């Protein structure tokens, strides 16, 4: 058994909006082991980003509020830790990269200054050391003429290079966990391939654990070892990557994989489409959140929330129905 780095229990996050309270995350449990890459998959609004942001208390509060939960990072609860202490965890031990590298870089600061900031703050370096380390980091993520490019501003970098800078900044303090929130969604497919290759290479070199949030089942297949699928603020299926793709068990996972076009030659099949839309979570779902769109739905699905049950030692599913027989689990 590998060492557990992060253990999250019963995490619940809500948002107060003018239209009412939105229950974005409704009791999420997961753990992350050292050196492991965990994929978090789901459609927009399923709570995948909010649950990871909540672990670092990065949700804007208000309107957001973490109403329940524990996030143990090396034996300390991130959710109840004093702000000062959390600040030493964020950036230094748990780093984050975001979807849009343009809005997460400051447009009026040079890349160099932004790179040096965490080094001065968390690593206690002086200016020269920080500059030298920044150049090393930029070279590590494959930016040519790194020394000169430190003086440039973010708008002088292309989208892919900005994401490389974000990765370099995230790695600057040797974090144990890297949370990547849709880091390749805004990029072209060839640039996306570059970034994924880079992260895989850096993972081998540095041995950090990664949480990779994405809606792209293709990208996650190339990088993750274990995947959690989220829907309506719940984890609905969790399994090692190969099991999830070879034996998807929750109707939503089956639907997601089926809605992808085939990569095989020859006659095209009709895409499997999940009818309807994801729910708006003004009420915490008391029954299965997927029931209104599910083709295997049974009466019990509309009445009670299924638990996250093990169907195998490392494969859990939140569903009442056995989709192979179409009947409710015994």
């Amino acid at each position: 058994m590998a060492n557990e780095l992060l253990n999250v229990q019963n995490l619940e996050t809500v948002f107060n909006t003018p239209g009412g309270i939105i229950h974005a995350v409704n009791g999420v449990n997961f753990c992350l082991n050292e050196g492991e890459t965990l994929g978090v998959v789901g459609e927009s609004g399923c709570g995948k980003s909010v649950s990871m942001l909540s672990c670092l208390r990065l949700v804007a509060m208000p309107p957001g509020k973490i109403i329940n939960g524990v996030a143990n990072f090396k034996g300390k609860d991130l959710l109840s830790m004093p702000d000062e202490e959390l600040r030493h965890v964020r950036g230094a031990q748990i780093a984050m990269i975001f979807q849009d590298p343009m809005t997460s870089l400051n447009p009026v600061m040079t890349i160099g200054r932004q790179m040096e900031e965490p080094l001065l703050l968390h690593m206690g370096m002086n200016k020269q050391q920080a500059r030298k380390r920044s150049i090393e980091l930029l070279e590590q993520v494959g930016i040519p003429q790194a020394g000169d490019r430190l003086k440039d501003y973010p708008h002088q970098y292309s989208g892919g290079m900005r994401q490389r800078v974000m990765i370099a900044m995230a790695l600057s303090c040797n974090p144990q966990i890297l949370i990547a929130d849709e880091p390749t969604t805004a990029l072209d497919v060839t640039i996306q391939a570059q970034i994924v290759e880079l992260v895989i290479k850096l993972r081998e070199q540095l041995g950090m654990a990664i949480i990779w949030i994405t809606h792209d089942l293709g990208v996650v297949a190339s990088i993750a070892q274990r995947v959690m699928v989220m829907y309506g603020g719940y984890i609905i299926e969790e399994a090692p990557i190969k099991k999830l793709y070879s034996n998807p068990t929750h109707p939503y996972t089956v639907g997601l994989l089926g809605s992808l076009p085939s990569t095989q030659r020859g006659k095209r099949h009709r895409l499997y489409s999940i009818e309807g839309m994801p729910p708006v979570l003004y009420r915490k779902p008391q029954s299965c959140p997927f029931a209104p769109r599910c083709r295997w739905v049974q009466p019990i699905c509309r009445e009670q929330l299924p638990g996250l049950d093990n169907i195998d030692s490392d494969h859990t599913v939140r569903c009442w129905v056995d989709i192979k027989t179409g009947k409710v689990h015994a």
Partner: protein
Amino acid sequence: MTTSNEVLVKVEDLKMYFPIYSGVFQRKVGDVKAVDGVSFDVYKGETLGLVGESGCGKTTTGRTIIQLYKPTAGHVWFEGKDLATLKSEAMRQVRQNVQMIFQDPYASLNPRMTLRDIIGEPILAFGAATGKEIDDRVADLLTLVKLSPDFVGRYPHEFSGGQRQRIGIARSLAMNPQFIVCDEPISALDVSIQAQVINLFEDLQQQLGLTYLFVAHDLSMVRHISNRVAVMYLGIIAELADRDEIYGNPLHPYTKALLSSIPIPDPKYYETRKRIVLEGDVPSPANPPSGCRFRTRCPIADAHCAEERPELREVTPGHYVACFKV
């Protein structure tokens, strides 16, 4: 799917340059060559996929074909007329037959108009119907795109992204067009909704015999929906062939790299696959490389590629490639 050999739209050496002005006197200092000599045919009843990375000119090509931009040079033949030289009123009449569906379903619908007004506007503009007939037609169109006809009095903000895209589709179908340019119609939608909209596109094509130019960057969706696929790079077409031919036997080094970067939803695939990862970014279309546009990132480029621009030539029947090395 029925596709014929009848050419519906013929694009010849289409160019679209956007001028760059600079300095105090706003002098013209150059051109962004967004589309720089593109030729292809679109057959009646087919779906031609147009793929490429952002900035390669695929959207501009689509927009220039239906004359949302006045082309710098070249011809677009449709029903015996050259759309590039038509006067505005004549072009307006042609627009009944050539329509466009836009990428962003949030920006392409007027938030202050009801569905009746949005979908009925083309009918009103061409004077094709009046009063009650318009309402009937709008209700029919809503049913066609699998929305409830009861929605006619509602506003766009009441709908989700997938539903809005259906509204955009209904609007484009209002005048029974033959040819529709779909500009990234699914890239703003969630995965499960994408499949719904793609299925709708296929159903409509079958029912109405539509011809699509399907512009997208999602290579696996383009593979699914297209009969033939054209790959663009920096304003030119690098390769064009039947869907199975281009995905099974890509010849241009750019196509090879592009296809190998598609994320495949199968973890076993990654145990064996070696990716071709391209170095660097797409160069600026304001100052493209000499000779072959792709040579700066090409793994097999040599001196010849820098001197001369490779023309798109037919290497096997129906398979066109612009590369010296093939």
